[in-house]
């Protein structure tokens, strides 16, 4: 049967004379896997519902996230902790679907040239990040992370922020009109608070309108909402994966 199809001058030979049929068959072949893998996810909305504790980013955090993307930090840092004992010890509870429900684009990463950042929020004081971003080797000797001194000198560009928040709302983040329209003012207010904290920690007194403050706001928030409960973590590390 099958042989009739593939032998020299078999049925397949005929299809080779019909480019249109051939193309349609090819499209069908690639659509099967596509549909089977995606249909459930899009129909059931699985993994799309955020935990009650998870909130979308504040306007300043949106601005910080844009800087993270602009500088390509995701090329060296993952934000996705896997359910292995060694990762739980090193980075904290594993990342759950609900935690990432508002992430667009997702920033899970595929390479750990540097450590995972999914739960770096709160790990260091703001000032540590300021110094580290200005020159990573000042806080982490021998680090191979690039320096980002311009983040301390460039002023934040908040002009596009309302537009960004509006676009994010379109793709499903629950922002209010108030948040969207006053995005820049809200961002400035949060930046003032963070800048004041930096000063308290003994840092420079001129960062409220600098890009670094937005980035710090974003980093300090990472992984602080909606982590898996300890019970879940315990089950996962008992059953999950090849823990040594």
């Amino acid at each position, binding site marked *: 049967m099958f042989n009739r199809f593939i032998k020299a001058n078999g049925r397949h030979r005929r299809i*080779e004379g019909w480019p249109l049929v051939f193309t349609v068959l090819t499209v069908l072949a690639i659509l099967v896997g596509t549909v089977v893998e995606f249909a459930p996810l899009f129909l059931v909305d699985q993994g799309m519902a955020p935990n009650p504790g998870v909130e979308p980013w504040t306007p300043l955090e949106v601005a910080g996230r844009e800087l993270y993307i602009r500088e390509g930090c995701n090329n060296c840092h993952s934000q996705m902790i896997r359910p292995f004992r060694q990762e739980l010890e090193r980075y904290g509870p594993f990342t759950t679907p609900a935690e990432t429900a508002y992430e667009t*684009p997702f920033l899970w990463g595929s390479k750990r040239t540097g450590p995972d950042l999914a739960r770096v929020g709160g790990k260091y004081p703001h000032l540590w990040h300021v110094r580290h971003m200005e020159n990573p080797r000042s806080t982490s000797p021998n680090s191979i992370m690039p320096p980002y001194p311009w983040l301390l000198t460039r002023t934040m560009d908040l002009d596009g922020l309302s537009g960004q928040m509006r676009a994010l709302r379109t793709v499903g983040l629950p922002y209010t009109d108030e948040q969207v329209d006053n995005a820049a003012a809200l961002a400035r207010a949060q930046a003032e608070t963070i800048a004041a904290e930096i000063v308290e920690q003994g840092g420079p007194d001129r960062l409220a309108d600098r890009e670094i403050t937005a980035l710090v706001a974003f980093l300090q928030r990472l992984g602080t909402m909606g982590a898996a409960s300890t019970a879940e973590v315990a089950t996962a590390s008992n059953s999950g994966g090849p823990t040594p």
Partner: protein
Amino acid sequence: MADTPVSPGATAALAATAAPGQAHLDVFRYDDKIVRHFTLATILWGFVGMLVGVIIALQLPFPEANLGEYLSFGRLRPLHTNAVIFAFAGNAIFAAIYYSTQRLCKARMFSDWMSRFHFWGWQGIIVAAAITLPLGITTSKEYAELEWPIDIAITVVWVVFAVNFFGTLWRRREKHMYVALWFYIATIVTVAVLHLGNSMAIPSSFWNSYPIYRGVQDALVQWWYGHNAVAFFLTTPFLGLMYYFLPKAAERPVFSYRLSIVHFWSLVFIYIWAGPHHLNYTAVPEWAATLGMVFSVMLWMPSWGGMINGLFTLRGAWHKLRDSAVLKMFVIGITFYGMSTFEGPMLSVKSVNALSHYTDWNIAHVHSGALGWNGFMTFGMIYWLVPRLWKRELWSQRLANAHFWTGTIGILLYVLAMYTSGITQGLMWRAFDDAGRLLYPDFMETVIQIKPMYWVRLIGGTLYLGGVVMLMVNVWQTIRRAPKDLPDPAVAVPAISGTPAKDLVTS
């Protein structure tokens, strides 16, 4: 596949001599100028993309090489990947497609202006990428970093390319499509579907947008795209290239027609499922990752079907390798294809992926495919094409052989260094002491451990780039000696009644 080449002046005479009763002859010309364009663009962008590769390879062990905002690692790495994939490999497959499709269809490309539009449009997109990525304008999605205006331009150019290609199929004078054309068809339609599916975004401004997918969905769509960019940009078009240029260079027919049918359809069907192997143990649903793993393991067989069909095509022709840099490069290319498509299914297995994911092992896997398979298949094709396109013997066979050896040693250094560093990272990250604490709790401990490997990779990459410079010199010297006037070659083939012939040479 034998064409009847005729000299330009003789075309009219040729058409006239078709004896009465014998089939009428169509006389037309292949468009080789467009192939020359794509070939030169391949070489140029190959050099640029790999130079950026060498720069980022230097930045990793030597962060002082991050020279300011626009040239820091995080911005140059996407520039490297976009340049080598879409500019180097992209132009290479266009050169292969434009050269071989015309010959396999016995017809000139459907439309000259579409060919030109495709060429210049694509180069424009590359330039736009080379400007926007260092500026930090990026979506952050791997291999889909370009922002939405450029995505739209890509769509337009790709559609023109598709019309031009399918139009040529429509006008063909050869009843059956040869296997290379199957792979080109799969490439063109699937890349279109992937690009559209993954680039869906809501713009917030001209240079910023957000994907319409979030979290787990965005991850799955991205790696459905990302993995199949590998499949349908770095694999299927190169298999098409192999099926055309390898038998030509070896002067042997393809090993098995049946195998090509079986492995074509199974490859195309299975590849699309495998994306979630990039997301093992992440927050995506377990069943998706398992499905990805199972199909990835199945993918081993159709992949090796291609390798076997390639290598066995050389049966009885192995002695030709000694004098042919082209064949040597093809053999190494196909061998690396076999190795990376064995390694890939292995990396998809969850227990292996638990170790390899996030490490330099991925980088080794990527570059054994990219440098070995994509790079060497491209170089082999160029060494075969240049003398034919410029009507001049290759300037130096010895230099081509030197390129072969430099490149091969470069790949070996590169991948061996990255295997070592990848496995080192993986083992150190998971090591516990007797008391059950992490043995290397400070991340910097692994970084320091693998730094020497980064230097070795830099040496390997530099050698490989040196090979590309040899290619440039060789091609440049050949072209300098080429005839000034390079008319498109005319051919005469029996007309097929019913095909609308628009490409005839009119007397």
